[in-house]
């Protein structure tokens, strides 16, 4: 038996995150670690729970193992419910054939039966690649007040960057008049955040139409939204003010981690009014040794720090030996930074060992590039890893010099 829900959230978590290179080699982007003890998907999931949405479908496709394991039964987010809760929705084999999710809209289309079981009035579409805290219930209220068919959350971006986003043109009542995906000469700064609320019936109608169109790319931004606009549907922009960051590239992921630091951080994790939930395992408290120096950093349980850590974010169980220096870096779980080594302006994935006296990256300065070390790599003692290197996890080591 399925209890009716007012709103069901569908979280698109199948993305590969190819611009995170080594960090998404074996992990889907939403499962990429962030902020010391979180993964990217914790943010939309916690937002759902904090907004009173207790039924969430998570659409997975690329490298789902870590992600599936992480979501589990949804217990860390209180989504282990008898009625509703979190459900992982992988692509499946149907009677008339098996298909991968061809696009964002197609993924939702293939799971209309999941949505319909709860007979929701509204469907909230989310993506798993952004860091932000948002109360979706306010957006839903806005949607209802405007008697809208579709509401799209937008955020003001600098005009210079607007051509990277899907841009909304609206009238004075915030009704959307035009939508352009990555415009060359943007005239508006209202960027789509990839958060949509639809009336269920209308969404279903458009998804079915879209699925019948062989020329469609089955994408919300490219197909569904323009088609709805053309049909004259009531579509509104919902302005969001607050921190929001796409963490789809190495640079932006590093920046978003750094945004957590400082006395007045751009994004304040320590605001107790808006809790972000995550799956943690039992680790001992962090130990800071007698000779250690820790400045302007975030450090998590299980860490043992005997060296110097400055302007960095350390995940659980990181070991920094006496004499080691970690600067302007993000280090994922259980990595070991051995004595006398230096890690500068880098991102290290989990279980990396930086040998004695090794040097990873170069001191942060304008024009310098971030160095990335993939999971489970061992950097030999005394070895130097030059600035901007991208080292893939073992068995797949290439020296990629691609532009990030």
């Amino acid at each position, binding site marked *: 038996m399925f209890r009716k829900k007012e709103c069901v959230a569908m979280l698109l978590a199948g993305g590969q995150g190819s611009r995170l290179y080594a960090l998404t080699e074996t992990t889907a982007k939403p499962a990429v670690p962030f902020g010391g*003890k979180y993964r990217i998907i914790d943010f939309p999931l916690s937002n759902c729970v904090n907004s009173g949405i207790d039924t969430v479908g998570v659409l997975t496709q690329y490298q789902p193992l870590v992600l599936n394991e992480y979501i589990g039964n949804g217990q860390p987010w209180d989504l282990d419910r008898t009625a509703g809760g979190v459900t992982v929705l992988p692509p499946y084999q149907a009677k008339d054939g098996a298909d991968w999710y061809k696009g964002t809209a197609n993924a939702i289309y293939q799971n209309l039966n999941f949505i319909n079981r709860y007979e929701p009035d509204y469907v909230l579409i989310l993506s798993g690649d952004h860091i932000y805290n948002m109360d979706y219930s306010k957006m839903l209220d806005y949607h209802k007040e405007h008697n809208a068919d579709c509401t799209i959350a937008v955020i003001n971006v600098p005009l210079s960057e607007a051509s990277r986003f899907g841009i909304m043109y609206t009238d004075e009542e915030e009704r959307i008049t035009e939508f352009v995906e990555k415009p060359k000469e943007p005239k508006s700064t209202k960027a789509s955040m990839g958060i949509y609320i639809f009336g269920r019936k209308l969404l279903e109608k458009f998804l079915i139409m879209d699925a019948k169109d062989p020329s469609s790319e089955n994408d919300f931004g490219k197909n569904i939204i323009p088609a709805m606009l053309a049909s004259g549907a009531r579509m509104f922009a919902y302005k969001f003010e607050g921190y929001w960051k796409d963490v789809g590239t190495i640079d932006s992921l590093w920046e978003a981690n750094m945004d957590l630091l*400082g006395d007045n951080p751009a994004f304040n994790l320590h605001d107790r009014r808006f809790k*972000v939930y995550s799956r943690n395992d039992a680790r001992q*408290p962090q130990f*800071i040794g007698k000779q250690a120096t820790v400045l302007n950093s975030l450090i998590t349980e299980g860490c043992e720090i005997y060296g110097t850590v400055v302007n960095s974010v350390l995940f659980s169980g990181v070991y920094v030996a006496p004499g080691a220096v970690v600067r302007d870096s993000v280090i994922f779980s259980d990595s070991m930074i051995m004595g006398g080594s230096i890690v500068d302006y880098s991102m290290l994935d989990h279980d990396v060992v930086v040998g004695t006296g090794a040097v990873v990256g170069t001191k942060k300065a304008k024009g310098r590039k971030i160095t990335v070390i993939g999971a489970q790599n061992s950097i030999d003692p005394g070895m130097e890893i030059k600035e901007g290197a991208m080292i893939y996890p073992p068995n797949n080591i290439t020296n990629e010099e691609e532009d990030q």
Partner: protein
Amino acid sequence: MVEGIVFSGLHDDAIPELTRERTMASLPFACRYRLIDFPLSTLVNAGITNVYVIAQRNYQSLTDHLGSGKDWDLARRSGGLRIMTPYISAFAGNAMAKFNSRLEALKTISNAVFSMTGDYVVLADCDGICNINLNDMIDQHARSGADITIAVKKVNVTPERGERSVIIESDETGRITGALVRPSRIAGSHDINLNIWVVSRRYLQSMLHDALSKGLTSMSRDFLCRNAAYAKYMIYRYEGYYASLTSLQDYYASSMGLLSSNEDRNSIFNVKNRPIITKVRNSTPTKYSDGAVVKNSLIADGCVIEGTVENSLLFRGVHVGKNTVIRNSILFQDTYTGNSVSLDCVIADKNVVIRDYRKLSGYETLPFCIGKGKMV
């Protein structure tokens, strides 16, 4: 199958400074744990999933901490965690509702004990810190065919310590010959009872029958001392780290001991396949500001540190203000210290607020305790 019984409040009077508003089992220890985490994790790590926790007084903090038991994987459809609250009948005879010993506590859950079906039962108190390999102890118990096996550790007993301990005497085969219950004027190297026992289930049930019909009240006195010649009681020698918490001084010294010895700390918290599990609070990572100076300290998540912290333990959500200096202190969950505060040898209980410019200090042998929720 093995079942477990945890006695949560048999030692509530040991540290009155900290147990006035909570039972011993929910006494915070080592930045993020409560005492019950140690016996409970020990049981769970040995694969024991049927666990009874006997509660008596001030157990609200305990039920809050344990919840459904899901953090320990004990929220089960069959078995799992059961909190046994005091048994008070609407009819006459509530004598059993209050108890001071293990045997009396077991009488209050006699129905549960008599319905047990496993081979062995593990009994554990909440008064010490250790990470013992219970499976090894259960194996030894099964091999030796003992009725009771008691975990002991050889320690140097001082007269003061002796008065707060049970000393187990055994022969060279490890068979227990007697017990000294809180002896006075004893000193030297002795085996002390760690209050972790493995008992054969049928033997436990027969002891309880005996106790109910004869009005016996003490396991140590009525069984251990009297029956040692007839029944088979064995010791299990534990060599690892053990801290008994029988006074505030013990508590303070054991906490500080975690800072001075990496080996001790790792032998409790860093044992492969035997993690100490506690309630997850979803704290943020701890934030160190540009002005932070932290040395030789154990720190939980969720703290914000803007000042100096040396030789101290900070629990979750502690705030250390600018120019504040914290030395040799233990600050419980959500303690807030303002700017330019100075603390030395202080234990601040939960939610204490210490305002700007306050200077407080105690001494190693008598740390200064600030009660729960107080503002200085």
